[in-house]
């Protein structure tokens, strides 16, 4: 289980290879990459800055990953989240989960993303041609996270 907060970009292919290394029992790797879009609610984004709460971020992410490991039969998980200034098409976040079978890998990966979106202390500030503003939390993210509160099958 690895959690990393970094300003540098990451290499999806290399990270997944590293996640898999040495385990011949892995039959499934589900992964998710979040990217900066150039449009949000119809406004053109020129840059985005990601702020976080050092210390608490790592702790919150580690707890989310541990919860995923309790709930599903997975082998390993990786979370990388970037901070600092980012541009459209830049990678923001990677969540990858390995397991013997795909159902558990998919569910754990989506669970980690949904919880990260609502429980890990990151904040986005968007720079547009009209100026900069802090992004508002989306209700749909809270709804997505709530789905997991019922016991999973």
């Amino acid at each position, binding site marked *: 289980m690895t959690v990393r907060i970094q300003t540098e970009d990451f290499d999806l292919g290399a990270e997944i290879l590293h996640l898999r290394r040495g385990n011949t029992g892995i039959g499934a790797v589900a992964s998710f990459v*979040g990217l900066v879009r150039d449009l949000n609610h119809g406004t053109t984004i020129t840059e985005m800055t*990601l*702020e*976080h*709460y050092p*210390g*608490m971020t790592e*702790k*919150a992410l580690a707890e989310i990953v541990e919860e995923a490991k309790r709930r599903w039969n997975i082998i390993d998980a990786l979370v990388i*989240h970037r901070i600092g200034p980012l541009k459209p098409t830049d990678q*923001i*976040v990677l969540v990858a989960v390995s397991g013997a079978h795909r159902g558990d890998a998919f569910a754990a990966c989506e669970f980690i*993303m949904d919880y*990260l*979106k*609502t*429980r*890990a*202390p*990151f*904040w*986005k*500030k968007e720079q547009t041609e009209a100026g900069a503003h*802090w*992004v*508002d*939390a*989306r209700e749909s993210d809270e709804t997505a996270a709530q789905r997991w509160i019922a016991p999973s099958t």
Partner: protein
Amino acid sequence: MITLLYFARLRESFGLSSEQANLPADVADVRSLTEWLRQRGGAWQEELAQDSPVRVAVNQDMADPDTTVHDGDEVAFFPPVTGG
């Protein structure tokens, strides 16, 4: 003495990312701590208004109004998170 941290919009509104504070004797939980900060007026009153969606973490764990606050604690105030 406790450590107070402010993030994102709150950090900018307050013009402050952290401070050390000596709490009055009647500040014992997140609710009374928030009320105490609100009394500073201006941006503090606005951002920490009772209907504001501000989140609070005590020692890096999400807290609620009843969470107790002790000397030596690290208490952070921030907007709902928007990472990922």
